[in-house]
């Protein structure tokens, strides 16, 4: 187990963490403002990857394509909120689950009709496609460092928006005292519209960031959605700070677990038992962590409200 391996796995873990944060941030804000569960958030992640991939290919310029793709994701967020989601916010959770599940089926299948089931290419500019030598013995892909940088920058921006602006103040107030905020004359539905569309764009950004690393295909949002739920449950629904801490925690535990648990087991229980239990245990790790945290703190690490 060399230093280079450990450093690169830690970086991988952080980078999965910031992608999870970008996805979970929108989800947790939407939940906070409206007590709304949106299963279709993973679809917005997938759409972001497709929209950026298509607009980069269309414009032939990465930066321009990225901006256009994200604007399209934002616009789509507005459209979907107006067409579907605003009609679900006052319903009970069961209907929200059903309605957003329906949206998943519709959008996933529509993307499959247009682009097919096979993964599409996600172009990365040549300057970002190579790798860089961090120290002797460790070459690390530039794109992964870009993800880290963008993720941290967006986290900082979100912190500023939520803690230092008027709309952020309303979002914070709305997540704990929705009726009061509403009674004070704030149009909570309009607030929800903006938060929802902004969250859709963040998920789209996450999808675009992850695009070159995973395969861009219609079902790519499914896996990330469920891990994002784990992040929200661990961090405490409605809390941006909780989402950030939990996203990094889950990203690290998942990555390091997959990288090192099989080896650790091998030295503990022997090769043959480890070969069977290793992959199973490392894929269970984040869920076991979630279970452990929930049994101590049922409303998550930073969940103020009782769940």
């Amino acid at each position, binding site marked *: 187990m060399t230093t280079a391996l450990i450093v690169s796995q830690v970086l991988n873990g952080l980078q999965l963490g910031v992608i999870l944060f970008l996805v979970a941030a929108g989800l947790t804000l939407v939940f906070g403002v409206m007590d709304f569960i949106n299963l279709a958030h993973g679809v917005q992640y997938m759409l972001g990857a497709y929209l950026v991939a298509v607009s980069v290919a269309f414009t032939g310029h990465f930066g321009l394509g990225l901006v256009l793709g994200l604007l399209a994701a934002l616009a789509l967020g507005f459209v979907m909120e107006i067409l579907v989601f605003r009609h679900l916010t006052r319903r009970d959770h069961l209907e929200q689950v059903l309605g957003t599940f329906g949206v998943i089926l519709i959008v996933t299948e529509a993307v499959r009709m247009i682009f097919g089931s096979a993964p599409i290419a996600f172009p990365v500019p040549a300057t970002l496609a190579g790798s860089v030598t961090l120290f002797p013995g460790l070459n690390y892909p530039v794109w992964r460092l870009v993800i880290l940088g963008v993720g941290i920058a967006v986290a900082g921006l979100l912190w500023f928006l939520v803690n230092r602006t008027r709309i952020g103040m309303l979002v914070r107030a709305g997540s704990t005292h929705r009726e009061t905020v509403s009674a004070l004359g704030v149009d909570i539905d309009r607030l929800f519209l903006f938060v929802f569309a902004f969250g859709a764009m963040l998920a789209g950004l996450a999808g675009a960031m992850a695009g070159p690393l995973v395969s861009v295909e219609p079902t790519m949002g499914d896996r990330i959605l*469920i891990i994002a739920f784990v992040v929200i449950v661990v961090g405490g629904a409605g809390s941006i700070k909780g989402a950030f801490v939990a996203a990094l925690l889950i990203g690290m535990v998942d990555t390091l677990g997959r990288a090192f648990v099989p080896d650790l087991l091998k030295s503990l229980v022997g090769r043959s038992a480890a070969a069977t239990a290793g992959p199973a245990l490392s*894929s269970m790790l984040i869920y076991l962590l979630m279970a452990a945290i929930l049994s101590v703190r049922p409303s998550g690490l930073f969940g103020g409200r009782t769940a």
Partner: protein
Amino acid sequence: MSPLAPAPAVPRPRAGIGQTAALMALLAAALALAYGLGSSYGAGLVTRTAILALAAVSLSFLIGQAGLVSFGHAAPLGIGAYAVLIAGEYDMTNILAVLPLAFGAAALFALATGAIALRTRGVYFIMITLAFAQMVFYVAASLSAFGGDDGMAIAARSTFFGARILKPDLHLALLAIALLAAAALGLEHLAASRYGLMLRAGRENETKLEALGLDPYRHRLIAISVAGGIAGVAGALLANQVEYVSPSTMNWHLSGELIVMVVLGGSRRLGGAVIGAMVVVLLDEALGRFTEHWKLGLGLVILGAVLFRGAEVRALLGKFSHG
């Protein structure tokens, strides 16, 4: 709910027994028709409907009676299927051992994860049950000895002390319908009992129930375990029908479709889940003939049903069955 609102009427589940019997007769008639026409395809469809209805009925007990929206019901179903596969690899195919094993393994999983999930409410509960189900999915995919990602064929359909009683599809279909009838009637009975009343009371007002000295946590945990076990039996039957088990048996979309069945048919009566299963299976088949993108149509139906409050197909169907 405002404190002045009248208490919602508690449905009288005994009234559902007649409906359940009628639905079983309908399934049996469809099976007889399929055999009369010599359509093994149709018979397979009836079997699949009965199996999914079995899982949906158990979920309906959770959602409709206990008010617990589990988004992970495909997990105990998949565990039941894997019980058949794994037991078969160790030469255990006797149905008197396999079905209890499937029930027990699935109930145990539901008990363990339910004990944690039940500490939470609402949206948390939905997300946690989904997460735990996904955990089982990945564990199944990592079982390289049992097919890993791809899954594998079961050694043989279940036997009765060596006699291959499930080899004819007809026997499997009859067993599925019989188990569905037994589960539906058993759950109706449970729902009509004091225990069912406590579950519904806990759904409406937990604080009052606790003030009466009752323990809603324990009742819900029992409900989750029983429902999980029944879903496990459904999974065992499914493994027997398709003779193949893979992680995709417990894809989370199945959890979603089971909820769709429960809600489309109406969650206040257990029989509604059977109707919902019929509707969804028929819808899948009908749309599947029309286009390979049938999921788009299913999604539109689901979304439309939710948006336009037409969620209760049963209400419509009920008009037909009661004249």
